[in-house]
């Protein structure tokens, strides 16, 4: 997988250090990040062949967590403990090569923590013995923070799985929520039609979810992880359109865009009654996972924002303007504030309002086009796409503290960057960008660092990061 790394530090230069510190505080609550050494683990017998996948996964999950600073491998001592019994205090005046705590806590590694262990085969399964030590302690027994046994299938997937679990347990020590089990839903045209797909947080296990063979887009996943809403153009029976069919792609026999809701557990389509309107589009679920925010032309006066039940009934109108009102997103903590995109000021900008449509206020400055707002899980920040400082269409990802309206820019002109969505851990952001030529999906930390490309096939866009079903 191709990786593109941005230098996060450059963000600070152009913008208020106060704002940066505020945003950075979201990512790293303790200020100074703990340093960790993660030497490659080895496997005995049959397990060794899967250790490449194991070590890559373990290092990846720890290094992209945003919680830890990785000690460069070149600074490691030559000997690496594989189990607690390997620790040997050197005799006075003797030099130790890695089998004592101070070999890791002192320079050159100067680590705070050491992750070590080994794998073996037991009952035709891969077994991982993993430890995390605070190497600043004086004895191995007082240094141990974590010591655990993990089991997985005896193949590469099993090796990856135990590495992910070990990484998640290590990250838990530093207060990080695990991303294991989270899925990213997105739109891909790799089949020739835009369909909804999903993948793991690291880009593995990419699966097609819909097969509508139309234009299917704008996925939104319920907070409880059980349902997905999206927008698609229904394919009409071809006989009704036979005359036009020979005109090719201009007339594809598609009906007006409508909202669809599916169960993520069974994959099945659920009932949703669309408004009789030239367009209906899904945007977000309310925190109870039982109501939807949509935008629709149901009033015959351009797209306006509404709330409906999960089946489309009980329509409540929230905006009432002469301008375009789209992309309502509700604060996941309060369920009371909505951010949305409105053209009421001339160009699309991000606004907030109460759930009943009152107290409308613009959040962005009025410069450029500001679109695609997405709440952070703590309900304090939004990520969004903005052309501020660039030509129309050249969006970059920004994060704003909603209360103060201070913002930082996370991407800097590398193609079009759109549709940010926060991970459930509140420190990762997934977004799409055409920086490589085609539209692809990337993750990064909420300070703009650690950019990783997750997709490569076809064009991929509109990612949403969902929790595992609860």
């Amino acid at each position, binding site marked *: 997988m191709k990786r593109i790394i941005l230098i996060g530090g450059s963000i600070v230069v152009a913008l208020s250090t106060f704002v940066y510190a505020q945003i950075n505080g979201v990512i790293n609550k303790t200020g100074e990040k703990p340093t960790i050494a993660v030497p490659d683990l080895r496997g005995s017998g049959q397990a060794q062949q899967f250790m490449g996948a194991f070590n890559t996964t373990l290092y990846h999950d720890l290094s992209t967590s945003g919680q830890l600073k990785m000690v460069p491998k070149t600074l490691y001592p030559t000997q690496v403990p594989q189990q607690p019994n390997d620790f040997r205090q050197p005799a006075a005046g003797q030099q130790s090569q890695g089998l004592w705590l101070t070999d890791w806590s002192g320079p050159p590694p100067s680590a705070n923590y050491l992750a070590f262990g080994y794998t073996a085969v037991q009952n035709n399964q891969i077994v991982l013995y993993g430890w995390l030590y605070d190497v600043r302690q004086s004895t191995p027994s007082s240094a141990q923070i974590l010591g655990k046994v993990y089991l997985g299938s005896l193949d590469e997937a099993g090796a990856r799985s135990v590495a992910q679990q070990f990484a998640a347990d290590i990250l838990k020590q530093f207060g990080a929520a695990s991303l294991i089990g989270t899925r990213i839903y997105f739109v891909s045209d790799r089949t020739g039609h835009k369909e909804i797909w999903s993948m793991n947080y690291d880009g593995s296990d990419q699966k097609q979810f819909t097969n509508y063979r139309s234009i299917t887009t704008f996925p939104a996943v319920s907070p409880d992880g059980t349902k997905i809403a999206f927008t698609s153009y229904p394919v009409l029976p071809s006989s009704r359109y036979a005359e036009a069919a020979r005109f090719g792609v201009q007339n594809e026999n598609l009906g*007006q865009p409508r909202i669809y809701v599916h169960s993520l557990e069974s994959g099945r389509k659920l009932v949703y009654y669309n408004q009789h309107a030239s367009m209906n589009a899904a945007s977000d679920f309310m925190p109870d996972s039982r109501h939807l925010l949509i935008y629709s032309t149901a009033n015959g006066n351009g797209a306006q924002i509404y709330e409906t039940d999960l089946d489309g009934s009980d329509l409540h109108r929230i905006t009432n303007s002469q301008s375009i009102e789209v992309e309502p997103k509700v604060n996941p903590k309060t369920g009371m504030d909505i951010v949305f995109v409105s053209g009421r000021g001339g160009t*699309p900008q991000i606004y907030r309002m109460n759930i009943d449509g009152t107290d409308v206020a613009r959040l962005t400055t009025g410069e450029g086009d500001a679109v695609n707002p997405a709440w952070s899980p703590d309900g304090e920040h939004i990520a969004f796409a903005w052309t501020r400082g660039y030509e129309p269409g050249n969006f970059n990802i920004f994060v704003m503290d909603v209360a103060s309206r201070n913002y930082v820019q996370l991407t800097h002109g590398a193609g079009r960057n759109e549709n940010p969505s926060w991970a459930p851990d509140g420190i990762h952001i997934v977004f799409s960008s055409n920086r490589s030529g085609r539209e692809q999906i990337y993750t990064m930390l909420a300070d703009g660092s650690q950019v990783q490309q997750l997709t490569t096939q076809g064009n991929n866009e509109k990612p949403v990061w969902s929790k595992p079903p609860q």
Partner: protein
Amino acid sequence: MRASSRLHASMLGALMLGALVLITAGCKKKVAAAPPPPPPPAGATTAPPPPAAAVINSFTAEPSTIEPGQSSTLRWSISNATDMSIDNGVGAVQSQGQQQVSPRTSTTYTLTAKGPGGMDSRSVTVEVSMPPPPPPATSTPRLSSADLLQQQAQDAYFDYDKSDIRADARDALTHDAALLKQIFQQDPNFSVLVEGHCDERGSAEYNLALGDRRATAAKDFLVQAGVPADHLKTISYGKERPQCTEATEECWQKNRRAHLSPGQ
């Protein structure tokens, strides 16, 4: 399609058979080839001379071309035959004779003569000429409504992030309104889809709504100009179906449009 695939199948069969024969022949090469048969012996037994074969001396139709209802005379002369007949309803005949026929369509008569020494046959054709057809009914072939629309409707173009009808769009839609009124008069069941499109620069979500406003603005203009509203339906494709995919203003302008297409 089916006939041609059957043809392909049979050709394939023939090829396979050919291959089989080749393979078989190849196999047989291993066995020593049988010697060719000996030549026939010289001076074979002289047979008695055979009886003379039946010969048709003449067989004509006069006149050879008739109109429906008229008749033609068949005449013939035959030697050395014992069994003589003409097909197409004439039947057995003598060695000399004539017969009137009046076929309704062009017909070929075959005279067959058989004798102990062999047979002969000859054919004549009586052409029945048809009167020329009347001139075609006086109607010019009409373009289908969909063809008319595709060939003659003009797109209405818009400014970036706008759905106002510009002066050039007003001209295009005025032209379209006249065309649509003509089409719906000829073809009252026809309906038209007013599509709204956007360039790639806005967000897909905003553009879906913007395309809807463009389609609606174009439709409203057409209805104001007298096109029946119940024949028109709008659809927004946002930026999902661009006409042009380059990142230039010329291309973006082509994509910021309302387009008319045949409805469902």
